[in-house]
């Protein structure tokens, strides 16, 4: 009798977790489709797609900042990979004590309070006229994304067995040819994953963009911020949902791509 009783605490804990994770998302979805919702009502008074039309109408702020966001993210990915591929390869083939020290150095920008860092970055960029430019924002995002890019590409290169390269060298391939025909293709899934991480990081980045980009560069997170401040919860919610799409999509993609042997070497 009462066979379900022992399951009750588990069900409660599970429900609680579900609420913590999905509760805010539900609120977001409600706001995205609410046309009228004010205190003291628990649920919106009218649902509709009015604000969606507003967001997606041509030449709207939202579409403009989405395009800006994507361009910035793509440039950031390009800059990060251009640095991380040679750096990751060198680090993967470097002896261990040095590797640990250099990897830690890439973590440094992350270690300090980001507000303090970005205020100073903004001050310095101002001197060079980089404030309010796409270049400035890309630079800030690149420094931020580099830690992921370097760590993951290092792991990806370290997972490529040295003998596989030597086998190519051995039968006549130069170092460069070996890199492009053997090492790079084998490390490609890991590099792909790091590119995706950097892309998502750039898409979501707020603090640096705020200090360096405002008011000339408006990315999606900045738009969301101004919309919330102005009380346009619907616009903010819809922007948030748009930001969610690439994140969830890429996460599924990354999960399929990153193999355990690469993950095991991250940071090692």
């Amino acid at each position: 009798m009462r066979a379900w009783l022992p399951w009750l605490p588990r069900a409660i804990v599970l429900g609680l977790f579900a609420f913590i994770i999905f509760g805010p998302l539900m609120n977001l979805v409600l706001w995205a489709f609410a046309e009228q919702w004010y205190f003291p009502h628990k649920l919106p008074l009218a649902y509709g797609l009015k604000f969606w039309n507003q967001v997606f109408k041509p030449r709207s702020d939202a579409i403009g900042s989405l395009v800006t966001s994507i361009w910035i993210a793509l440039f950031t990915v390009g800059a990060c990979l251009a640095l991380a591929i040679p750096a990751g390869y060198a680090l993967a083939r470097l002896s261990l004590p040095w590797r640990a020290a250099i990897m830690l150095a890439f973590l440094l920008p992350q270690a300090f309070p980001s507000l303090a860092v970005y205020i100073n970055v903004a001050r310095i960029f101002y001197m060079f006229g980089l404030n309010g430019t796409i270049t400035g924002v890309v630079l800030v995002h690149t420094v931020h994304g580099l830690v992921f890019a370097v760590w993951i590409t290092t792991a990806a290169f370290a997972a490529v067995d040295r003998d596989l390269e030597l086998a190519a060298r051995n039968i006549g391939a130069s170092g460069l040819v070996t890199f492009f025909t053997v090492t790079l293709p084998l490390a490609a899934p890991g590099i792909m994953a790091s590119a995706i991480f950097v892309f998502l990081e750039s898409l979501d980045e707020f603090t640096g963009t705020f200090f360096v980009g405002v008011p000339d560069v408006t990315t999606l997170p900045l738009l969301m911020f101004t919309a919330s401040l102005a009380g346009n919860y619907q616009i903010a919610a819809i922007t948030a949902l748009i930001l969610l799409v690439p994140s969830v999509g890429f996460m599924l993609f990354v999960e399929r791509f990153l193999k355990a042997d690469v993950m095991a070497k991250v940071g090692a």
Partner: protein
Amino acid sequence: MASAALDVVELEVSYGPVRVLKQVSLAVAAGEFVALLGSSGCGKTTLLRAISGFVSVAAGRIGVSGRDITHLPPDKRGMAMVFQSYALWPHMTTAQIIGYGLRLRKVPKPEIAERVRAILAMLKLEGLGERMVTQLSGGQRQRVALGRALAINPEILLLDEPLSNLDARIREEVRHEIKALQHKLGITTIHVTHDREEAMVMADRIVILDAGQIAQVGAPEEVYNRPTSTFVAAFMGAGNAIALDVRPAGNGLAIAAGAHNSALGIAASDLGPGLDAGHSGPVVAHFRGEAARLGPVDGPGQAWPSDHLVLTGRIVQASYPGGHYRYAVAVGDRQFMVDDAQRLSVGDAVGIGLPVHALHLFPADPQKPGG
């Protein structure tokens, strides 16, 4: 020695402060199959990697057909290696892997396809050209690795323990296949192995390495029957060692009778390379378990031919590995492994009969009493 296909002269290689190869010199004739034999850590793989250009050389010279290649990068040496791990690229098909070296050499596509087909046929891999490596068995992978090396017609083929990842049964087969293939193609081959039998079966000449130095070089029969050091004797299977006392007698030596052994005279012509005829004092005798015979202990010299050294002992352990029995015989405070066809019991007192030619004598090392 300019005519040698491969000429290694006083080669030294260090890993950090550790010198792993010391004054290694070796000349290999064209078409010869040489095995580098030694236990792990003896430097045999390092020697192979120095020849292929993967590790840098501290001193010495490596020459190929008269060309000095000591400081050339690996891709300019005209060699091909079969790796222990096979090192097959998981992102390519069998045909792409075998054709890789040819594509680098800008060989026209139809010619590559033809050559790959010929290699696949030669290695009995027909129909597997479009398979990915991950879909192949261990034996097939091993042959693909060999095919990749052979496709470029290398001057020198390097084999780095290529059989150690195969099942014992397949390994025996592949030994003979590789040997036959090497003979047919006439490629100069250097083969690294820790397996004595593999080296004996495959190689024309065996180089035994010990602690970064060449201990002995010779044909399989020579290193087996005429070891020049206790290390080679023990490594080639003569692991039983007994301390004896000798003095010069006539034109040879006389072994003095001891607590557990009979006396024996040895003519100078019967002495191996390990000991001079004029030697006097303690020596170590190495012998193989299968070269000894067991018999009753009815007075030394009585039941045994006069050219036998007889040790007296007691059986402490018996096993049957197949074909014959194997006994552990305690002689004094030492134990010897001896093979014999007759069935004996643990506890039996026995004599171990050793014909003169089965004894490998060396001056005793004062550091190690009793060998």
